């Protein structure tokens, strides 16, 4: 890729002074962006920052309720104010878009190939047959195996990753000047994300188009973008070439955002206090001032313009000072460094909180509407082993469909499992009486993924937190004393007890969920993706809270997450699942530094690191395809179909992999000693 020259090339997309209002509430407040051919611009921001609105405005696809001001020029044509007919001639030809959710972005009733051919025929005067052939070529280009055949499939017959490939094929069908990708990999698993990003790179290289990559994931941006623009409250607050922005951010928000991302070697996260402002009620002055530790009166009087040298602009009056003193995120944001008291007792002597061995759960696969008959089984969990000791955090990782949630539900059921054994605090669940189950329920509590959906919107917070206490039969006085204590414990105020969930931000709601779980003083907290619905800056605060609570209360965590950086940051031990089975487990440092199962290696290599230099120089293991269906139970190793090691084995070794089920801490017949390139 040739570096774009600032003056040589006119921008293919030029946005100046863009304002977007929805029913009087501003969403974008004066954005300037210019993209040149072959350039990748990363647009970063948290939810509600207006980044997707910018992309949709550039396509002229905002809903009718939006009021747009300013200018968007694509190759010299002004888009703002242009009619639908005029815009339709440009859409898909000059600029194309890849959307976030591949599950809903394709029309379910038309064949994939036809939908791509339609994109071709909309702008090119070619026949049906020719367009179909071109669609097959495009599918081949984006790496769909057997494209001729697959082009006749319907979207529901494609996996999420394949649908996103098809979307990219559609976007490049007419050789656009600009590709706008709005969170293109957010809905995908990390190994599939790595594949799709690779396809996006290829697509951009093939067409020479400029790419506007909208994402909240700083790792993805680090690996893809040449330049990065950071958005906050509808404005760009910092923009710089990627290496510069990641290495030396100059605006406190960017610093906080980067400091909040867990990365290898960082034990301290810098959460940005508070929540993004309500754009309807913006304060005077800098929109970030209420959350900024450096803010003073100058910040609160006038909103700073995006200023500074062309290659590194910031909208912050403190930027020169930050640059001069070379401040880091940890200098700007106060962090309560948790005392790193590692357990002195050897692990083997600590009492076990949870022990799971060979846990199995199958679901019947039924066919027929009224009189369903069983035609097979879904082996959702097929041999899971877990071991958590007192005060330990076990991270359970795996891609969607690997059986993480089923494992949790089976443990929380506190009943005899289908096969295998679950032991909670020394009690086998298969031998519990009703009374014991009830007593044990209080010792194992859960925190859910979606903090809004898991809180009853009609109950005041105090009631929500008190419910587990009541269920365990606590008396009124005890409940009344415990609630303020619990709310303070999770960083809320006692007065919050009378408010309702909708009055709180996402991060605060998750704190309420944690307070509820802690109410009955559990010994084991099961956390099911507790931070994946939260923005990075908020997520860091929750992770710090969990860490502190563990140290203070001596809790043990079973922490389920698809985000490996988060697990690496919070967990002591990690257990990797694939297709319902535990494939590798061990101490976090050990597994992340020297993964030995080929799947773990691929999984770790797929995680983008928020560091452009490291992200671009490291080698990675790209897995082909998607996880297979859990209906066909593998006799031997479940990973053979995608395993890079298996691919290089001889016939005899292959037979062993396929026929004999591997066991042990590294469930692989040929564990790889190769340490991973340090990221």
């Amino acid at each position, binding site marked *: 890729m040739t570096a774009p020259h600032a003056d040589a090339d006119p921008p293919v997309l030029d946005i100046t002074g863009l304002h977007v209002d929805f029913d009087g509430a501003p969403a974008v407040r004066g954005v300037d962006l210019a993209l040149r051919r072959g350039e990748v611009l990363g647009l970063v921001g948290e939810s509600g920052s207006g980044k997707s609105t910018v992309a949709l405005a550039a396509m002229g696809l905002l809903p009718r309720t939006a009021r747009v001001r300013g200018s968007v020029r694509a190759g010299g044509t002004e888009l703002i104010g242009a009619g639908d007919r005029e815009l339709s001639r440009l859409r898909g030809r000059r600029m194309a878009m890849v959307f976030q*959710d591949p599950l809903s972005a394709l029309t*379910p009733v038309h064949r994939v190939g036809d939908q791509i051919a339609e994109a071709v025929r909309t702008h090119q005067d070619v026949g049906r047959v020719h367009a179909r052939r071109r669609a097959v070529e495009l599918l081949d280009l984006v790496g769909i195996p057997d494209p001729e055949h697959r082009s006749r499939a319907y979207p529901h017959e494609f996996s999420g990753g394949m649908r996103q490939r098809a979307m990219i094929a559609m976007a490049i069908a007419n050789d656009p000047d600009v590709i706008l990708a709005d969170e293109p990999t957010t809905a995908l698993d990390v190994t599939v994300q790595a594949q799709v990003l690779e396809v996006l790179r290829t697509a951009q290289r093939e067409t020479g188009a400029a790419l506007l990559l909208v994402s909240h994931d700083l790792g993805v941006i680090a690996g893809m973008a040449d330049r990065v623009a950071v958005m906050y409250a509808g404005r760009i607050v910092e923009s710089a070439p990627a290496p510069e922005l990641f290495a030396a951010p100059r605006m406190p928000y960017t610093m906080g955002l980067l400091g909040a991302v867990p990365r290898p070697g960082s034990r301290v996260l810098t959460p940005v206090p508070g929540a993004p402002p309500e754009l309807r009620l913006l304060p005077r002055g800098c929109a970030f001032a209420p959350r900024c530790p450096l803010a003073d009166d100058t910040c609160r009087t006038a909103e700073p313009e995006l200023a500074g040298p062309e290659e590194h602009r910031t909208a912050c009056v403190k930027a020169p000072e930050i640059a001069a003193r070379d401040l880091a995120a940890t200098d700007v944001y106060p962090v309560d460094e948790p005392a790193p008291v590692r357990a002195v007792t050897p692990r083997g002597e600590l009492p076990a909180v949870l022990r799971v061995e060979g846990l199995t759960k199958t679901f019947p696969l039924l066919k027929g509407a009224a009189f369903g008959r069983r035609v097979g089984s879904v082996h959702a969990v097929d041999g899971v082993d877990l071991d958590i000791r007192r005060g330990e955090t076990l991270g359970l990782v795996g891609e969607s469909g690997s059986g993480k949630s089923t494992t949790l539900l089976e443990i929380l059921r506190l009943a005899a499992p289908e096969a295998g054994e679950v032991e909670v605090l020394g009690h086998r669940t298969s031998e519990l009486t009703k009374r014991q189950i009830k007593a044990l329920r209080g010792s194992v509590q859960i925190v859910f993924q979606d903090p809004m959906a898991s809180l009853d919107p009609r109950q005041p917070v105090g009631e929500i937190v008190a419910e587990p206490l009541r269920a365990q039969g606590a008396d009124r006085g005890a409940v009344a004393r415990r609630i303020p204590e619990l709310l303070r414990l999770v960083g809320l105020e006692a007065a919050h007890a009378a408010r309702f969930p909708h009055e709180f931000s996402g991060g605060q709601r998750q704190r309420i969920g944690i307070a509820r779980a802690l109410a009955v003083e559990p010994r084991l907290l099961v956390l099911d993706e507790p931070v994946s619905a939260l923005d990075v800056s908020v997520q860091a605060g929750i992770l710090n809270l969990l860490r502190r609570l563990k140290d203070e209360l001596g809790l043990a965590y079973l922490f389920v997450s698809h985000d490996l950086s988060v697990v690496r940051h919070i967990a002591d031990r990690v257990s990797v699942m694939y297709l319902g089975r535990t494939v590798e487990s061990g101490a976090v440092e050990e597994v992340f530094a020297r993964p030995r199962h080929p799947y773990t290696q691929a999984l770790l290599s797929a995680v983008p690191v928020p560091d452009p230099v490291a992200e671009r120089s490291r080698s990675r293991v790209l897995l082909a395809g998607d996880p297979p269906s859990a209906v066909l139970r593998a006799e031997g190793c479940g990973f053979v179909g995608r395993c890079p090691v298996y691919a290089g084995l001889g016939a005899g070794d292959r037979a062993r992999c396929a026929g004999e089920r591997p066991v042990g801490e590294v469930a692989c017949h040929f564990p790889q000693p190769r340490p991973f390139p340090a990221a």
Partner: protein
Amino acid sequence: MRRIASRTVLAYLTKRLGYYAVLLAVAVFLSYVLSSLALSPRGYFEGRQPPPPASSVEAQLTALGINDHTPLMDRFTTWASHAVRGDLGRTIDSGSVGEEFGRRIGVSLRLLLAGTALGTLAGILAGAWGAVRQYRFSDRAVTLFAFLLLSTPTFLLAVLLKIGAMRLNQSAGSELIAFTGEKTPGLTGSTATLLGDRAIHLLLPTLSIALGTAAAYSRYQRGTMLDVLGSDFLRTARAKGLTRGRAVLKHGLRTALVPMSTFFAYGFLALFTGAAFTEKIFGWHGMGSWFIDAIGKSDVNSVVAVNVFAAVMVLLSGFLADVLHAALDPRVRTS
């Protein structure tokens, strides 16, 4: 590949038909038993003036196979053994139920086909259009009109149409619109004249059926269309360069029709039995009026015949709904 070969579809449909046969047998049995218990053909004969002799009533009832002195199960087996051979028995006036049946079906079909088809089409278009122009004046006007029609009972609507036509005829001074029966009795002439006469007779009943049908469908269609209009795939279609109108037509409408297919199937076939008011008011002798008349005369065999027909129609509708659904939505074809 999960694409299904047509052989699998055939096997699936055959199995479906098997279920339907069982359901149909149950429905037939129940309707026979209920009609026989609820209706009293003996009373019908005995109430005649002058009262016929008891022996002849007895003989007549036995001949028709509806004598309540014969055990119910025996009556049913006798009826059923004829029915499976296509003989549905005799009406209370000793006519052939089968012949009557054939005549009535033809009338119903001629009466309802155009009205239902037109109403369905108009309903889809009005609903889709209203959704696209949500909350604008045209949408509100369509909505208001639909609610007006929905809250007007069929007989009132039919009578209003009739009055309108009468006024028109009066002011024109000749019979422009005919609204009684299927055709002008005794009219002779070329085929074109005869067809034209029939068309004029069809105008009002068709309008009355079409309006009601369209009003109901437009509401459902507007709802499903609104769901689709906010969908991501419509946005994708526009991002490709399709204008809003084309995107809605090519990607939106077909998807919005999927949940409607069940309504269409049931609505279409249920009309065969449910247009009694329209038939009565416009003087057509179709299935609906036959049913009402048969109940009035305690004509057990005719009532059972209409019931059997209705049961077949319901099952057929279900089948049609499945086929339609599968035709419109590739997602249900794989399982």
